């Protein structure tokens, strides 16, 4: 490999056919005379602009099909010509400089074209150099040079993360690895599970209970997750009514009065709330508005007056933390869109309440396709305000346009799986943790189950990793049509040649 040119923080390196380099790999440009080395990452590979190649191809196109022949090339010049014609140009981004074994974020110097040597840096060396693994490693998978890459759980602590990639590339799988990794270090994780994909986390692939089994709590709203109004304080119910059910301001004021009245008289039940709304002296429109929201609360099945079947969510959070961490999965798969918003509002408000009262230290929230249950106004709240209370969110989506640009800009870590759609690539390239060129070029060619890690977890050295498999029942409960049919069709038809055979 030879250094060709540098423009801004982009380095162009000539690479010859016998040198194997892949997108995403890191190279070390060592300038012995300057006693410095520059670290660059290959973000794209092009054919070198060798003069005459186009002419050569145009000339030979069409000829090769009908002309046979041979070359009497005693000096084997052809091999040199082919070598030149197959030369590649590596487009690289500068990521820092090593001086006296120390990594510094400098890219202003220019290594010598003639004296520099260029070689690949094994991921292992890079990880050590940048201290990526840290003291709380979460194993993510293998890099292309077969290095088992782990990230430091501390780099997820207090951070905003995004996991995105097109459908079927392994987003949920990765989020399970992260969630379980956090649990290994005693963290409390809440997962807003839109498709019921996390409900089997407590089971191994063979269906037996795994080591996480007792740490996984599945809550299905309306079934195993019901709450009483008594457990739901005014702040939580008001957020639910206003954000999830769109209660107008005037009606909200009246509701507050009703709630306080019931609370004061010790009659705060669902039944009494309905009666109180009907009997409350107020504008008929307000009354209607309140009653329709009340009906929604009742019909959701999420609220109950039966203390025995109610879940004390706050208590569950505290118990989970006390027991050394765990995952609370809110299974939203059988919940209608309006009820979903109600449940999520409740959960978030309850978490915020618990955190703000320092009843628990922190919650790692994994939100799948959050745009389906979070109001727009809520995003900033989660990212900025609630972060300070100790709610650290990981958004998971296959529609990158549903996440606001400011969230990309504020994200500390981004886990990118494959995207090919130009529009999607443009959106994700807004992430502040890496330059747009690196993201669009590498992500476009990521194979399934390969992820580009960006941000603090990799100390801003974007690394491609093949996500490891998990010994947990990770599949969701997608119902397939053809698997059922296949069972009816035998794999192969066997013809018995015995005496009973008619053939």
């Amino acid at each position, binding site marked *: 490999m030879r250094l060709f040119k540098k423009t801004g923080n982009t380095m162009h390196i000539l690479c010859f056919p016998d040198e194997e380099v892949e997108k995403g790999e890191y190279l070390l440009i060592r300038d012995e005379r300057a006693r410095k080395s520059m670290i660059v990452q290959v973000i794209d590979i092009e054919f070198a602009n060798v003069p005459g190649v186009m002419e050569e191809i145009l000339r030979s196109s069409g*000829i090769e099909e009908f002309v046979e*022949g041979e*070359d*009497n090339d005693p*000096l084997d*010049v*052809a091999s040199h*010509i082919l*070598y*030149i014609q197959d030369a590649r140009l590596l487009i690289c981004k500068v990521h820092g400089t090593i001086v006296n074994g120390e990594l510094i974020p400098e890219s202003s110097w220019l290594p010598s074209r003639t004296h520099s040597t260029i070689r690949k840096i094994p991921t292992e060396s890079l990880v050590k150099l940048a201290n990526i693994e840290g003291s709380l490693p979460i194993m993510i998978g293998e890099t292309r040079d077969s290095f088992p890459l782990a990230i430091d759980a501390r780099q997820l602590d207090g951070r905003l993360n995004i996991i995105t990639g097109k459908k079927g590339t392994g987003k949920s799988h990765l989020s399970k690895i992260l969630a379980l990794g956090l649990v290994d270090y005693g963290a409390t994780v809440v997962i807003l599970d839109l498709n019921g994909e996390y409900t089997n986390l407590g089971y191994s692939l063979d269906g037996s209970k795994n080591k996480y089994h007792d740490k996984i709590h599945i809550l299905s709203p309306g079934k195993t997750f019901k709450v009483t109004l008594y457990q739901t304080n005014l702040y939580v119910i008001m957020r639910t009514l206003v954000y999830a059910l769109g209660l107008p301001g005037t009606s909200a004021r009246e509701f507050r009065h009703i709630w306080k009245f019931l609370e004061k008289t010790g009659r705060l039940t669902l039944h009494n709330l309905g009666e109180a709304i009907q009997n409350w002296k107020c504008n008929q429109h307000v009354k209607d508005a309140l009653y329709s929201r009340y009906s929604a609360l009742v019909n959701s099945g999420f609220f109950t007056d039966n203390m025995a079947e109610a879940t004390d969510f706050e208590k569950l959070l505290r118990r989970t933390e006390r027991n050394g961490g765990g995952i609370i999965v809110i299974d939203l798969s059988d919940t209608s869109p309006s009820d979903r918003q109600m449940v999520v509002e409740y959960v978030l408000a309850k978490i915020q309440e618990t955190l703000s009262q320092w009843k628990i230290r922190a919650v790692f929230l994994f939100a799948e396709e959050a745009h389906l249950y979070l109001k727009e106004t809520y995003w900033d709240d989660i990212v900025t305000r609630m972060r300070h209370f100790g709610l650290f969110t990981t958004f998971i989506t296959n529609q990158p346009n549903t996440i606001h640009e400011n969230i990309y800009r504020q994200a500390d870590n981004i886990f990118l799986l494959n995207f090919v759609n130009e529009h999607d690539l443009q959106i994700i390239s807004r992430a502040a943790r890496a330059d747009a060129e690196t993201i669009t070029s590498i992500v476009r060619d990521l194979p399934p189950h390969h992820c580009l890690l960006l941000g603090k977890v990799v100390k801003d050295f974007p690394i491609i990793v093949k996500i490891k498999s998990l010994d947990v029942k990770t599949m969701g409960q997608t119902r397939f049509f053809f698997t059922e049919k296949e069972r009816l069709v035998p794999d192969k038809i066997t013809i018995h040649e015995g005496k009973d055979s008619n053939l």
Partner: protein
Amino acid sequence: MLIGQLHYETTPKYSFLQSLRNLGISKRIVELSLNSMHTIKGKIFKVSNEELASFFIEHMDSEDQLPTKDGMLSALIMPLRAIRDGTSIIGIDVSSIKIGVTDVGVIYAVRGAIVLKTNNHYRYIRLGPLPFHITKENIHEVFGELSRDLSLRFNFLSYIDPQIQLCNIMEKWLRAYVSHLARRSIILWDGSLTAGTPGNPVSDLSKMLRAARENSNVVMGISKETSLKFIRWGMTDLLNGYKPPYLFEIRPASFSHTGSLRLLGRIYVAKLAKRGCAFRLDIDKAIPRDEGIVAVEKLIGNETLYQGYPETLRLAHIYSTFTASDVIGIQRLLIKKYGLKLVAHNNMHRTLFGPYGARLGD
């Protein structure tokens, strides 16, 4: 006009290409190339991109510049009919290029291609690229040995660019071998059958043509560009009104012979295809006129014509011509194998005058 129908047997498939290989004809020329290259080990090697670009501008054949006497032209238009009898067609072309300069000489590369069409099938054999390091010390030796080995009366002429001479000698060598080895074929040369020009003695050309005739071959020279003029009109443009394919013969009386120049071919302006261009076509003069015309009819019957130009010759040109990546590849070989130290060739104007010494676009 009665044209005698000659019988040409088809050349056995690839037999002459096989013979070309079996004879090891390239051995000596390769040795000479290697010997010349041994003188360059560890030397400084200058490469100029500006010069490189100019190498790819094709030089026009100077040998086509034959003067005609205005008003003395007697000519015949001969319509042609295609004869499809499977006669083999062979095209020969050679290219050379300057690869770089050392502190004691110049490195050239030469490459030749022979393309054979037989039984509707094209096959080629390509020799080279062969690099030659030509210095003041070895120039006479290299050319002397080349001509001796190839039994050619070739004398190095100091006033002609060695590159042109190297190309000529290689071309002659390929033409001579094909003339000896091919049987009952039409052999197409790039250029005319004019001899007596510097570095192109009449005896050599006569010998090759004789050898070809003895093997029942017909040699034709096709010039892409010609400066033949008739009453100040370019001859190849003159015949636009006639329906091709046809031949337009330029009789010897039309030419004012100068010095040692000898026309060993009968000269025609040929338009061989409807949508093609007209070319100067020379046919071995020692072959009866009618036979020559039949040979042209066999050429148009058995050969694909691209813009009126025979495909074998076009392919030979394509296979021999150097591209920029070829040159870079050869330069790489020289550096790797012979340890040449590559330095960029200085542009003296730029060195002396900076930006004021450069042409537009430099």
